[in-house]
């Protein structure tokens, strides 16, 4: 490298800056200089000029690859994160749906892909361009201020192998430059002012204080009573059961039943039909289990319509758990077993001997009030439909205990083919 006359002990030449009258002249000059063998050329314009890329041999940027990579990494990470948080670390059970279901995870994945790719585009552009760089020899040139308004400039770096302090300015003028100036940079590093460093330290240490205080408070216990920021949220004015109240003459917060009203389901006109059993008349306590006299016959006229109705209702209300044939292998049960749900009790097969032996009234009661782990369906299925289901359950049970005589005669010969 050669030295230049503008060099002083404090500064050295970093390059030359030439101004041109118009964009066309700039492009032309760029081509000329490049064919003259200069490689460290750059042009400065107030707006992008695509011909310059070709004139100066600007290579296409790697930025798109960066953006693609960031998008992929962002997308895959957030998808894995959603899977891990919602299906593994804290399984979110929502109406028996699968723990991980791609469609519902797409929106967040998409947003994060865009976000990470956008950051890559912005930060990547800055990084590849060497920005932010708040001080540079170019920005010290007064003339150069026009480069962001209406000036067109070309620079040749002093590191260029073809650079020559005498020949290069001449070549630039030859190429049409209206003015050529030398860019210099100071060799001595100017340290940051002392007060700036000091105040950075002070601000920095003050900034870590609040998080430290919070972390400290969170990880220790205190003997002082809790602070109630929002008092009426922590202490809500309301009555709980078994408490007193000044509002009513009897001083009770809970109200007795209003005379003349009947609670839901406690007005039997026909207990056999509505409950499926009668209580022994003598019993003072409500009878349970064995004390009940179960209804033995379905208290409705048994018709094929009732059977059809029963089949339909069974398939709607019961088959999800018990399976369409009643073996206890419905979809909900299969799914629960598949998910290895600890609390799941498999539905009883209605073909179990003790269920087959139950009177119809007991089956009716099972539907109405549920049994052990099975929920009650009385509020959901009208009385007549419950009896229809019982009838159909009976038919299902019969189907598993049938003999050849139960099959209509004309079908008997074809039975073997059914297998």
């Amino acid at each position, binding site marked *: 490298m050669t030295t230049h006359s503008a060099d002083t002990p404090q500064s050295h030449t970093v390059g030359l800056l030439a101004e041109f009258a118009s964009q066309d002249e700039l492009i032309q000059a760029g081509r000329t200089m490049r064919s003259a063998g200069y490689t460290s050329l750059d042009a400065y314009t107030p707006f992008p000029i695509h011909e310059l890329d070709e004139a100066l041999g600007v290579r296409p940027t790697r930025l*798109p690859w960066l953006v693609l990579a960031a998008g992929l990494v962002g997308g895959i990470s957030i998808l894995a994160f959603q899977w891990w948080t919602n299906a593994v670390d804290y399984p979110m059970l929502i109406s028996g749906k699968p723990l991980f279901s791609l469609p519902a995870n797409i929106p967040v994945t998409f*947003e994060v892909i865009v976000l990470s790719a956008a950051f890559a585009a912005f930060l990547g552009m800055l990084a590849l361009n060497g*920005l932010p760089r708040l001080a540079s020899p170019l920005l010290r040139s007064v003339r150069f201020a026009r480069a962001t*308004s209406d000036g067109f400039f070309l620079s040749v770096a002093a590191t260029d192998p073809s650079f020559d302090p005498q020949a290069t300015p001449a070549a630039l003028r030859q190429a049409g430059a209206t003015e050529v100036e030398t860019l210099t940079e100071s060799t001595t590093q100017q340290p940051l002012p002392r007060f700036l460093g000091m105040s950075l330290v002070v601000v920095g240490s003050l900034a870590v204080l609040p998080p430290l205080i919070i972390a400290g408070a969170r990880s220790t216990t205190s003997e002082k009573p809790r602070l109630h920021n929002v008092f009426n949220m922590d202490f809500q004015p309301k009555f709980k059961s078994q408490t007193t109240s000044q509002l009513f003459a009897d001083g009770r917060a809970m109200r007795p039943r209003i005379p003349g009203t009947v609670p839901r389901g406690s007005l039997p006109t026909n207990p056999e039909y509505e409950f499926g059993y009668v209580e022994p008349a003598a019993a003072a306590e409500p009878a349970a289990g064995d004390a009940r006299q179960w209804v033995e016959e379905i208290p409705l006229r048994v018709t094929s319509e009732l059977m059809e109705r029963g089949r339909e209702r069974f398939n709607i209300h019961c088959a999800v758990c018990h399976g369409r044939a009643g073996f206890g292998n419905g979809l909900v049960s299969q799914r629960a077993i598949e998910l290895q749900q600890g609390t799941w009790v498999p539905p009883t097969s209605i073909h179990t001997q003790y269920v087959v032996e139950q009177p119809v009234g007991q089956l009716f009661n099972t539907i109405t009030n549920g049994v052990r782990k099975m929920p009650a369906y009385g509020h959901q299925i009208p009385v007549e439909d419950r009896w229809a289901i019982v009838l159909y359950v009976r038919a299902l049970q019969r189907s598993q205990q049938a003999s050849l005589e139960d099959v209509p005669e004309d079908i008997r010969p074809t039975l073997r083919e059914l297998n």
Partner: protein
Amino acid sequence: MSTANLALNPELPPDRLLDGDHDYRSITDTVCQIVERPQPPKAWYVAFAVSSVLTVILFGLVGYLFVTGVGVWGNNAPVFWGWPIVNFVFWVGIGHAGTLISAILFLFRQHWRTSINRFAEAMTIFAVVCAGLFPGIHVGRVWLVYWLAPYPSQHLAMWPNFRSPLLWDVFAVSTYATVSLLFWYMGMIPDLATLRDRATTRVRQVAYGIAALGWTGSARQWSRYEKAYMLLAALATPLVLSVHTIVSFDFAVSQIPGWHTTIFPPYFVAGAIFSGFAMVITLVVPARAFFGLKDLVTIRHLENMTKIMLATGSMVGFAYAIEFFIAWYGGNPYEQFAFINRALGPYAWAYWTMVTCNVISPQLFWFKKFRTTPWLMVVVSIFINIGMWFERFVITVTSLSRDFLPSSWGYFKPTAVDVLMLIGSFGLFFTLFLLFCRYLPMVAMAEVKAVMPKPDTTAKVGNTASAEGGPQA
């Protein structure tokens, strides 16, 4: 208002984007003088005084809300999503025009966008600021708002549900705000460098110098910059469409009659663009008059925007009709009731305000007179903004106030806090906007220069350059 431009316009070639006689220098001067002159116009002071008072009211009310609780709003059973959510959707919708102009029109090489994109992007950011405020303060216990973020927490020992539309919304709106901000700022870097290089005071030099990040406009920088801009546009385009789609999921994924419909995403997006452009017109017409930008933002630009409003407004009208058709055709009695209730129920006044403003008023843009007379555009745009607010009100409130169970029906009444907060959010929006007009380059100078016809070099630029630059070699 601008009869001169109007008279001038027909003689201009159709591809001409600017009025008047401009070269690069004069573009710089026109845009920079707004920021550089020592005093803004009187009207700026008046507008700023009014809007900052409203902003103070808004933040005062937010403080009142924090110490008192959400009971200060009209939200109550059965309408738990009252005005705050209406305002949120309204402002997010407005925020869609900016990125649409900058990203989608950029990808379609619509060069006319260069004069208005900066402006519209700024509007987007400020609208999203207003939008983000409402769900933020709607969470009840604001001091726990960070629970929305998926962070490993010992205290909660759980994670947010990533399959909930409300969580999608958090991601969508915050991504949108961030990407719009990046896009806006990146687009502004070259222009900030222009302001830096023209700065005369030390404060301006330092402030714009830091903001411009040392941009020099070198060919290499431009090459990467343009690529980055293109990539951001390509990313922002599906993003714009996704944001209002996800906002509509907040409603559509629930099962309330009148919300649970598949038409919501496209219908919301069309409505968002519609309202966004209406807001751009409302702002740009006065701004171009006050700040002397009529040559850059010409009648042609305004006319193009009115055409987009006509198109999206008609889409919105079509969607209103289809909702009724589907309610009838779908045969769901609750859905049918929801729509009959909208048009004829206790909120019929709101419904018909919405229809008048959103369906009928944009049809005026079929007439050239409405497309080319700035003050008429502003009037129609204001009506559209009113209509679009009512659209969100109708959707949110009518469906909630009367759903499946008649015993829990109710009628929503806003409180004074509701009303003042809406007005206050306009104050915040305009305050930010006025600050933008005063301190940042309102028009993307570099982009305008890149699409304007090359000035007659020998006559203008060449002369000034050689006069300053000394003899040619």
